[in-house]
């Protein structure tokens, strides 16, 4: 019996579908990013999963008496068996990590979102100052904020009894829970990421169609009802995305818990992961890394469920561009003053503190006689040097490290910003399809993976037979950073594209405008501030990243941040403070140059 042959009428729909598929740029982009991300993003995931089930060289091999590489479930048994080991290495740190991540997420959104609302939707005074200065904490490495916190609040009653600025000036001793432990961790991580919430939520609020709120006002809805029923639902995707990003960052934060938790023996999963891997319990370490990814996935799922549930988050329709500002009336100046004081404390004080710390010889002594510029411009080889010859501004190793860090930031920003925008476009235009969901998730996965685990896996890849040409090269840092920081840009891309009504592009299609012109002449200009934040955020991330680079740089002084961490670890606080200040100045310079060249900046896109 002859098999039935597909007739032409059956083939044609398939061909039509295929042709229709490839003629849509969004589909081609999704396929392209699917292939690239499957290799660069999924591969570390697979490697990590494998590591959870295998025996590693060293402690595990000795303990379990099994050959390296053999498959086992013993790591799971050990970590979850319910003993003291399990409690100390998993359950208690899990609880702490969850509290810190959740608290930081809420705090970051509360602070960043509130300030974003005041700046974009009210007639608040001094917006330009508030908008420009509030982003400073995000430019600093998180652990430097932790150092600032201890410099400020440490006192003779806690820790090592070292006197901080508050006790020194006001004679006030803050209690231990305020200086060390979960509370300062939440505050520091929340403050560090609040500018991020400010940027993402503010971008949406700024572009929100005012007629939506005006309609509610006409219908006599109260101000609170408008915020609750109109404003918040519109910014909800950005709030959820921001919460997800802060939660994941807080959950995998390593340096902040080390600096603020060690004194009171308060450990998180990331500190335990590092300790376990270091002691040779790699399998258990990777299980912990997987747990943090799993939690991130759950929040990602909630986020996708929410954004999928709503038909549209369109705020840019082309119908109205007017923004009506809420009048704060008598409360205006008091609110402005409170915000300025708060922002000065979290954004300006750390800079003053770093500047002071970089010019004093003896810690805690701020008298003029104790000050020196040696750590900046000193030329003699003194007792303070650490392989560095005197001041950082006169040191060639330091300038080379600056050059590499800036170049890396710019290259990564270019790659990541462009990819993020294209992923955002493709995912939004094909929203609801399996392919779109998969690419969006793949682009986000690296963010959920702790930077240290990510670096370890890429080290193994770069030293394997086929990729050894990559090891120790600048290209490796570019690849790793681009993959790790793509989530920022892809989130930013998705959020901005979600706001643009498809009718705008469809109108251009009807007029036969080619795809690249639609992108460059219509979509990009409409969402310029939001898209440019996708370019600028990786610049900041690269400029302050450490954990990702530690294993991949050829030596500690290769990058500015690895050098900074080395200074902080070896106790050269003055050099460390000077380099921190330098990093912030470089980021501000890049921000300002971008502003001059494109008219956009971290803050200007929102309210400055």
């Amino acid at each position: 019996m002859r098999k039935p042959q597909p007739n032409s009428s059956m083939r044609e729909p398939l061909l039509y579908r295929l042709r229709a598929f490839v003629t849509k740029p969004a589909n081609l982009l999704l396929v392209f990013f699917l292939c690239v991300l499957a290799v660069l993003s999924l591969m570390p995931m697979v490697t990590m999963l494998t590591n959870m089930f295998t025996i590693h060289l060293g402690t595990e091999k000795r303990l379990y008496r099994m050959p390296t590489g053999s498959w086992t479930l013993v790591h799971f048994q050990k970590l979850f068996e319910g003993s003291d080991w399990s409690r100390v290495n998993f359950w208690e740190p899990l609880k702490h990590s969850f509290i810190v991540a959740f608290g930081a997420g809420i705090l970051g959104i509360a602070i960043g979102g509130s300030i974003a609302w005041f700046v974009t939707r009210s007639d608040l005074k001094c917006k330009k100052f508030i908008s420009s200065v509030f982003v400073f904490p995000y430019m600093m490495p998180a652990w430097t904020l932790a150092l600032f916190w201890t410099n400020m609040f440490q006192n003779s009653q806690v820790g090592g009894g070292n006197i901080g600025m508050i006790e020194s000036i006001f004679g006030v001793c803050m209690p231990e829970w305020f200086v060390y432990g979960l509370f300062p961790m939440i505050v520091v991580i929340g403050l560090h990421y609040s500018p991020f919430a400010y940027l993402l939520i503010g971008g949406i609020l700024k572009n929100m169609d005012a007629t939506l709120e005006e309609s509610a006002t006409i219908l006599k809805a109260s101000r609170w009802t408008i915020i609750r029923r109109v404003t918040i639902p519109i910014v909800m995707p950005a709030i959820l995305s921001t919460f997800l990003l802060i939660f994941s960052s807080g959950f995998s934060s390593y340096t902040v818990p080390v600096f603020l938790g060690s004194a009171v023996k308060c450990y998180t999963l990331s500190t335990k992961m590092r300790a376990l891997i270091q002691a040779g319990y790699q399998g258990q370490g990777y299980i912990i890394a997987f747990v943090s990814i799993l939690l991130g996935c759950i929040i990602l799922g909630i986020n996708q469920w929410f954004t999928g549930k709503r038909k549209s988050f369109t705020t840019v329709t082309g119908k109205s561009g007017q923004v009506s500002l809420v009048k704060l009336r008598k409360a205006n100046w008091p609110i402005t003053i409170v915000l300025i004081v708060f922002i000065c404390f979290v954004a300006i004080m750390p800079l003053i503190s770093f500047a002071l710390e970089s010019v004093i010889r003896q810690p805690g002594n701020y008298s003029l006689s104790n000050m020196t510029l040696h750590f900046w411009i000193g030329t003699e080889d003194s007792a303070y040097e650490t392989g560095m010859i005197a001041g950082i501004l006169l040191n060639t190793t330091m300038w080379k490290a600056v050059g590499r860090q800036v170049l890396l930031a710019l290259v990564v920003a270019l790659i990541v910003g462009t990819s993020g925008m294209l992923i955002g476009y493709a995912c939004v235009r094909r929203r609801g399809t399996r392919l779109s969901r998969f690419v969006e998730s793949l682009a986000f996965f690296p963010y959920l993976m702790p930077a240290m685990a990510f670096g370890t896996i890429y080290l193994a890849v770069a030293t394997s037979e086929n990729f050894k040409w990559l090891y120790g090269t600048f290209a490796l840092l570019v690849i790793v950073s681009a993959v790790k920081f793509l989530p920022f840009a892809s989130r930013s891309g998705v959020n901005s594209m979600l706001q643009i009504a498809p009718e705008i592009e469809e109108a251009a299609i009807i007029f036969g405008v080619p795809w690249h012109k639609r992108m460059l002449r219509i979509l990009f200009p409409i969402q310029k501030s939001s898209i440019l934040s996708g370019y600028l955020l990786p610049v900041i991330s690269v400029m302050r990243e450490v954990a990702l680079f530690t294993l991949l740089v050829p030596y500690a002084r290769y990058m500015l941040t690895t050098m900074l961490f080395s200074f902080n670890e070896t106790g050269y606080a003055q050099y460390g403070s000077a380099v921190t200040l330098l990093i912030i100045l470089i980021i501000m310079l890049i921000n300002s140059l971008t502003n001059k060249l494109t008219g956009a900046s971290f803050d200007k896109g929102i309210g400055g």
Partner: protein
Amino acid sequence: MKRFLSLLLVLAMALSMTVSASADSVQDALAAAAAMTNEELYEKAKAEMAAGAQLNFYSTTSFAEKAANNFMAAYPELKLVYAEIDDVETYTILTNTIGSGVKDSADMALTQNGPDLKTYLLDEGLAYTYFPESLKDVVEEKNQDPAIVTYINSLLIYHNGNGSVGLTNVWQLTEEEWKDKVFFKNPTNETVNINFLIMLTSPEWNAKLEAAYQSRYGKAWEKGEFETCALEFIDGFLKNVNYTYTSASKMAAGIASGAPGNMGLFVFSKLRKVDEADRSNLTIVQFENAVEGFSGFMYPIYATVAKDTDCPYTCALFINYLLSEEGFAGEKSWNSSQGYYSPNKTIQKPEGLDDQPYEYWTDCLVFEDLTYINDHFVEVYEFIATRVG
């Protein structure tokens, strides 16, 4: 034709031997180097450099860079490239790079934490040990394989703002009055600290702790909740320990400028990073009075040669140099600082440094024994890790 075939066969054999025996040739070269004079080694090293080699050496101690600079000044035709690596990442980087063929991987490494050196590098055949014949008489045998180029000590040091703390017995550190006043780097993050605690469980140190217990409490230690006296000490000590400071340098500076009476167990050499104005606030317990039990601990820095180095003779010459007076006590090198001790008995600490020679510390400090730690790591690590919190 026969001659041609024979020649071809010999060439093929020679080629196959060259390809398959590079690891052996490094070991052979190191074995040969051990018997050579420095002049002979220099000639061999120059030939390696002429063939395009350079010695990439990885180290966790910044003093090694100064030693390398001094070495290049002494042997101007040799090129050393120093790469500083973090202690925590050392073995991850070395196990991934040695033998992988990546550019500029380590030719030799100066590392701490002997048990990991043994497990990750030596037992896996990734690195070889080397020790020169000429120094065997002046360096104790236990310091030769793997070669120890320097010892570093961590000592009990306190803030003397309230006068002497009167520490005469280590068991005092487990008592309530020292709660949160003993500063120590978290042993699960600091390998040499965990090695020190594991060493306390060795029969020798367990016995010393039992004796100190008897002396402090007037009765012999008895087995109860804990299997050994050392485990009870570790439990009590860790209950009192404060982990505020995350590096030895910060601990030194922090205790010097912090609350009087605080005690730290940290690297002695870090006192050089304490501002001079604060340095007089610190007292080294051992210099004040002997302590029953111990006054601190001593850990080594080992030198090993990578299995795929293309300059084994240069590595050998550099190790010889580090073990010599010229290398160890050269300008701004280890010997110029407190807390570094050459295993070479002919090298003494300079006068006026407020330090003591290596021999002085042998009875009062807990020395790292890589074999013991390697054999008992797992059981004691888990005991400690669950108590760190």
